């Protein structure tokens, strides 16, 4: 998505990304990012919280108007929850899962190789 934002900017259309994966967007490099420190999937607010969703879009509009340089990141002041355990839990690898994950990867690679040999795609 950040690559699309860059292409629009290169062609004269100002853009703003509302995103939760701050590192991915900033490494790619975009003109303006409103960073929502929320779980991936809901960068515009907590589900069904219309007031928060309006506020976050409002912050995005403020940033669209105020940024004068590329790579301008503003962090939304809205918080997901007092409980931040979701940050630790995303794609967390528990020691007891390690073997199962390794096997799952092996199985997927084998399926892909088989599909490729058949001329299809897995």
């Amino acid at each position: 998505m950040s690559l699309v934002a860059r292409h629009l900017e290169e062609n004269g259309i100002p853009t703003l990304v509302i995103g939760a994966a701050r590192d991915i967007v900033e490494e790619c490099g975009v003109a303006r990012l409103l960073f929502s420190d929320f779980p991936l999937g809901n960068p515009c607010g907590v589900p069904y919280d219309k007031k928060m969703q309006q506020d976050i879009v409002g912050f995005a509009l403020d940033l669209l108007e105020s940024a004068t340089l590329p790579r301008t990141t503003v962090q939304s002041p809205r918080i997901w929850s007092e409980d931040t355990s979701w940050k630790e839990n995303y794609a967390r690898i528990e020691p007891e899962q390690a073997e199962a994950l390794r096997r799952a990867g092996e199985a997927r690679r084998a399926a892909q190789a088989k599909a490729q040999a058949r001329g299809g795609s897995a």
Partner: protein
Amino acid sequence: MTTTHRTFVSYIDRTREFYAAQGYERPYRWAHHENVPFAALSKPLASCRVALVTTASAPRETDTDPGSLRGAKQVWSGDVDPAPDRLFTDDLSWDKLATHTNDVETFLPIEALRTHVESGRIGSLAPRFHGVPTDYSQRRTLENDAPEILRRCREDEVDVALLVPL
């Protein structure tokens, strides 16, 4: 307050570690640029027409379709009026433990933008939003999808674009 780590999640680190645990030896190479293009607003926001771009796909008609677990393979567009009450997101890497995507406004804020049109903060919302596939291949995004989104934005005569990756 103090911390010993970044307080926001590094998804680049997490993804690399997760795939390494599955035995993938070559980590994904994320896009990285030194130079960043910047277009200034050409008119007041109150006169601007706004485009909305999502990484979600059009809703599936049936779950039994063999392609039903795959996301869009090409750029697509949908009407903002009426706003969609659901979109297909199962193929995307959102946080399925912490949340859900049943409220489309959490990633495609059409109603929220409409309140800002009504208050006069922005001029108008383009009549359609656009969907862009999340493609492993940055080449395909750059060569196919980005130019197609630009073409549609120009066709809709938008002045600014809000892009919301899930």
